[in-house]
């Protein structure tokens, strides 16, 4: 076997020989191929990610584990993380998405936490095939989440031709645990038993990590297709129950899920982070089909498996718990003192490697200060002419793929199981009631178009957007998770674009004083030399003060004042409307990050102390679409009477459709206007009175433009099959 057969370069091979002092055998080479792959080693992104802020008062454990953990209340930890399953979902959308959900749920379970929510962030092209992919992916997300009984409570969808051959399927999962049930992969001791739990191993997804997810798509990708992994949520559910029962009974010394690169990465990472070695007898691994080689057994990505580390005295009980659930549990080896991964097959040694070679010694790209500094630089971009305001524009934006109602997607997801969902996917964030432990707010966003021209602005904008969403309901952010999706890192432009995105996330998170507790990087989202827009999916978890009564997101009451709360910018760059009305995407506006924290705080405190009748963060499609969404919740008996101060028709367009950071739309009693204005202006926010809430199913602007509820809703609720307008 040759280095390139496992996705390694000649230089990497040299390094392996130097580390080992000999040539690796084929199995050993395969292990290096898997763990030194982009997907497992983060060789191109680790140095960038290390610049993200990780510390915060609520952080229990940050990046490095299977998921980040923050403390929600004295008695409750929250584990959460985003993962991508982009390439598999393109090859086989239903199973690709389903196994994506299963995979991230097992990451959460590996922290000892019980999953309570899933959120999915999806990006697709705009052609017919993309709509078929959307259909399959949504089916797959539901197939797994619904069946395993974890609600899909929020999510995000975006469309652009840039994702045509590289759709993005990022899934975020959240779990809860009592602090005393904390679990991880870093607590194994020498002399403990390794138990493989779950599905029998087949030839599924071999080389998924090293080849499929770590190179671009091209003609050859077809032949590299491994056996498609099939998700089994039924077994996934049983596996979850066995694992969590063992955790609750205190039977496990350490715990690791089997994800990308299967047993290879699970055993190596567990050993390395615990500072132990492992001796594994591959012939003991139960197989689904006869004749798998040690190589295949080590690299198989068969789903629904966990690796448990159990002390001798707890072994019997662990096996009994597994048997009670009729889940297969097999002793496959032991931890040792050696620091080595030592593999046997039918008694004969077949590989022997130090785990630190595999996990820590992968060659990684470094990032120097000048490069990092340069990433914040604004690119030179032009913004084209802004079209004059006209009433049809809002109908066009409402019916566009990026702004359209997502109901046809999320009604295929069970978002109510576990009976905590107070706000679900029909709102712009999820609010979960956790009883005595309080409430959890969860928001996910990250418009790709915002980073299309200026990755930095897009990354920062996405962070501010989710934090502004939490602020609108008075929730205190505990941490964020970032899903970075980008092109081929070997190309200067793609690498820089990813760097700028991460820098934007880092600066905004630091400015807002919110730690990044985990995340995921998916590179090589590039086909035939065309990279996707760097796309950062940001998820934020927050502590909600009164989850049983979150602030409404409708139009409040008839007679209420409707306000735009903003931060000064009216730049409509990278907005949905700019794309829809002009076909262009220019740079997303940058904002002064120094004031972000105080503005977010002012909003949070206002909402907590003096909740408005209704409040919603300004979303995709700008002020216009945010009003439409609020109106949709109030229904056709409500209406709006508005006027914009701008007489200039281009200014009107910008004001009505821009998506600049840190803006909200509020409904408050008219007589509170002065008080609210005073309060928020004191924190550097600006208030624009837009008009008032009326009765009667019409929205009237400046006395000249008007829209009926029925017309707007007909556009906004159009099904996805109707895409001809954007083909």
């Amino acid at each position, binding site marked *: 076997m040759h280095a390139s057969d496992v996705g390694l370069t000649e230089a990497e091979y040299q390094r392996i020989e130097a580390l080992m002092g000999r040539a690796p055998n084929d199995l050993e080479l395969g292990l290096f191929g898997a763990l030194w792959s982009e997907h497992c080693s983060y060789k191109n992104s680790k140095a960038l990610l290390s610049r993200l802020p990780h510390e915060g008062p609520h952080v229990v454990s940050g990046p490095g584990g299977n998921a980040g953990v923050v403390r929600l209340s004295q008695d409750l930890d929250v584990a959460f993380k985003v993962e991508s399953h982009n390439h598999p979902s393109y090859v086989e959308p239903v199973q690709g998405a389903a196994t994506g959900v299963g995979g991230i749920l097992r990451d959460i379970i590996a922290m000892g936490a019980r999953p309570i929510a899933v959120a999915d962030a999806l990006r697709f092209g705009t052609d017919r095939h993309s709509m078929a992919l959307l259909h399959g992916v949504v089916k797959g997300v539901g197939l797994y989440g619904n069946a395993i009984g974890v609600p899909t409570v929020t999510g995000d969808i975006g469309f652009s031709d840039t994702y045509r051959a590289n759709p993005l399927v990022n899934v975020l999962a959240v779990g809860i645990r009592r602090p005393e049930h904390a679990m991880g992969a870093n607590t194994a001791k020498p002399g403990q038993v390794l138990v493989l739990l779950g599905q029998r191993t087949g030839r599924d997804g071999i080389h998924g990590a090293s080849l499929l997810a770590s190179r671009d798509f091209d003609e050859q990708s077809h032949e590299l297709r491994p056996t*498609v992994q099939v998700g089994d949520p039924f077994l996934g559910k049983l596996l979850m129950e066995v694992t969590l029962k063992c955790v609750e009974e205190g039977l496990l010394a350490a715990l690791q899920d089997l994800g990308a690169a299967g047993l290879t990465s699970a055993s190596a990472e567990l050993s390395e982070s615990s500072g132990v070695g492992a001796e594994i007898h591959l012939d003991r691994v139960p197989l689904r089909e006869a004749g798998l080689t040690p190589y295949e057994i080590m690299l198989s990505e068969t789903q629904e498996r966990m690796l448990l580390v159990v002390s001798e005295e707890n072994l019997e009980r662990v096996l009994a718990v597994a048997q009670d659930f009729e889940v297969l549990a097999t002793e496959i080896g032991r931890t040792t003192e050696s620091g080595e991964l030592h593999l046997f097959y039918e008694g004969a040694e077949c590989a022997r490697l130090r785990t630190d070679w595999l996990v820590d010694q992968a060659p990684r790209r470094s990032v120097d200060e000048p490069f990092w500094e340069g990433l914040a630089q604004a690119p030179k971009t032009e913004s084209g002419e802004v079209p004059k305001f006209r009433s049809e524009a809002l109908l066009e934006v409402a019916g566009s793929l990026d702004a359209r109602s997502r109901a046809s997607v999320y009604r295929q997801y069970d978002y109510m199981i576990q009976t905590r969902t107070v706000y679900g996917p029909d709102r712009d964030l999820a609010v979960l009631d956790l009883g005595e432990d309080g409430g959890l707010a969860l928001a996910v966003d990250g418009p790709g178009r915002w980073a299309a021209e200026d990755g930095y602005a897009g990354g920062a904008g996405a962070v501010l957007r989710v934090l502004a969403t939490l602020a609108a309901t008075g929730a205190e952010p505990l941490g964020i998770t970032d899903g970075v999706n980008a092109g081929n890192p070997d190309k200067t432009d793609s690498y820089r674009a990813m760097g700028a995105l991460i820098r934007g996330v880092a600066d905004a998170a630091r400015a807002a004083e919110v730690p990044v507790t985990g995340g995921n990087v998916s590179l090589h989202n590039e086909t035939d030399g065309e990279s996707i827009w760097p796309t950062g999916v940001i998820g934020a978890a927050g502590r909600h003060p009164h989850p049983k009564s979150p602030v409404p997101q409708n139009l409040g009451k008839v007679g209420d004042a409707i306000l735009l709360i903003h931060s000064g910018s009216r730049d409509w760059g990278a907005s949905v409307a700019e794309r829809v009305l002009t076909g262009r995407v220019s740079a997303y506006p940058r904002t002064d990050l120094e004031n972000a924290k105080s503005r977010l705080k002012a909003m949070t405190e206002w909402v907590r102390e003096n909740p408005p009748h209704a409040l919603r963060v300004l979303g995709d499609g700008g002020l216009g679409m945010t009003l439409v969404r609020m109106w949709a919740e109030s229904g056709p008996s409500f209406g709006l009477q508005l006027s914009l101060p701008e007489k200039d028709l281009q200014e009107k367009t910008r004001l009505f459709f821009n998506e600049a950071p840190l803006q909200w739309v509020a409904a408050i009693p008219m007589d509170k206007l002065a008080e609210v204005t005073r309060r928020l202006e004191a924190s550097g926010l600006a208030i624009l009175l837009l008009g008032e809430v009326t009765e009667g199913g019409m929205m009237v602007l400046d006395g000249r433009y008007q829209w009926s509820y029925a017309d707007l809703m007909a556009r906004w609720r159009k099904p996805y099959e109707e895409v001809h307008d954007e083909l």
Partner: protein
Amino acid sequence: MPAFHAVVTVELKESILDPAGEATQGVLKHMGFSVDGVRIGRHIRLTLEAETAEEAGQVAGRMAEELLANPVMETFRVEVLA
């Protein structure tokens, strides 16, 4: 043109996991049957017009290739009924 009945049988490739088959096998065993494998595929009966049985088979084959079977995971075969 005469009408033909054709059956497209779609099965998972041998190496692909069949969770439904496994669960069904487990229950059959609990019910006391001794069974060593269950694989669940689709049996798709088509009614179509064609000049000859051969042509009907060809058309059904194209339907299978383009829609009825998922080539990433499944194999199929076509049979034209008398």
